[in-house]
């Protein structure tokens, strides 16, 4: 497995207590409602969903939807990989979710990709294996906008005919690389495209065609 050379070594950093933001105001119900939206987003691929839960992102410089998703999904059993070093975010994640930070993308159950242009190849993430495809990574990718980009036609389970999506800010060749993983089904990665408080889910079953 190739390790990108921009891989930061941020997993052993000290906690940043001074700027640590508070977590969910109501941890149980807020994480349940965020989880529900994340489920719906994968059940209805390529549609836009808004996270309406109030959450203080503090100095993490992370979109509220990404932080809420990471708080709701991660725990001590799910290593998280951060594509770019972010001490405030790693402190917040370690404190509020208890999730360990992965050194390498292949070790991660969840990955937060702040800069899609610099992201490693999709095949460097855990894809699961034929007996246990659930041990694959879920990637949360920041895009500059979920509309106004090149138009994509999506089809597959959860979409009656086709669903259009136009995210802006993904590197060229991204959908091509993703389509190449389709042959590995049931293995593969699931994606969330995130901009501010809005997200769209793209599970491994969705066919995405560039117009």
């Amino acid at each position, binding site marked *: 497995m190739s390790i990108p050379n921009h891989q930061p070594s941020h997993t052993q950093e000290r906690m940043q207590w001074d700027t640590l933001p*508070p977590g969910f105001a109501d941890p149980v119900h807020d994480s349940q409602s965020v989880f529900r939206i994340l489920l719906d987003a994968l059940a209805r691929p390529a549609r836009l969903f808004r996270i309406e839960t109030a959450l203080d992102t503090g100095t993490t410089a992370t979109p509220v939807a990404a932080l809420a998703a990471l708080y709701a999904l991660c725990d001590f059993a799910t290593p998280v990989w951060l594509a770019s070093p972010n001490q405030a975010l790693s402190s917040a994640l370690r404190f509020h979710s208890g999730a360990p930070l992965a050194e390498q993308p292949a070790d991660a159950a969840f990955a937060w990709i702040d800069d899609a242009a610099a992201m490693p190849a999709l095949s460097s993430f855990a894809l699961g294996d034929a007996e246990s495809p659930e041990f694959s990574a879920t990637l949360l990718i920041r895009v500059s906008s979920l509309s106004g980009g090149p138009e994509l036609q999506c089809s597959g389970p959860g979409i009656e005919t086709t669903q259009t999506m136009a995210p802006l800010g993904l590197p060229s060749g991204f959908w091509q690389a993703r389509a190449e993983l389709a042959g590995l089904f049931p293995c593969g990665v699931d994606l969330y495209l995130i901009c501010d408080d809005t997200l769209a889910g793209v599970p491994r079953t969705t066919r995405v065609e560039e117009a």
Partner: protein
Amino acid sequence: MPASSSTSPPPVGSPHDESAARRNWLAILARTPRAALEHGLTAALPDGLPQFDWLRPPETGLAMVRGRVGGSGDAFNLGEATVTRATLRLRAAADIPLTIGIACLLGRDKRRTELAALSDALLQVPAYHQTIYTQLIQVQAQQIEKDREAQRRAAAATRVEFFTMVRGD
């Protein structure tokens, strides 16, 4: 842990000393009843409690208590205990720097957890350390030692001595 080791204020200096001292007062705060915490804090801060932000509001859950048979046995799960934990951050003020206070107590008393976390934070603030240490921690350490002593005496009173003849082989 020996409560008697807390009769003199701990040396403040190296991080090692600080963490040992903090561990010591956290252990005492974990055994301090709510009324004693309320009383100790209001006595030490007559102008009212300082302002703080919750990093983790008091939450109640279960913690697995693990045991070990003898000194060399394997660890086993003894059972679950109800604990309440909280983390807060004091707001910076004139004589208070940003400080983190934590508490993890048996039971489900949220107010008691809040007061214990507040005490932990204030004990790290030089301006309040001495007052709270003498008025709350030392008093409680003595109380805990007194209770233990009473329990030891009660147990000792029921002690039975078994005598057997020593046989030579």
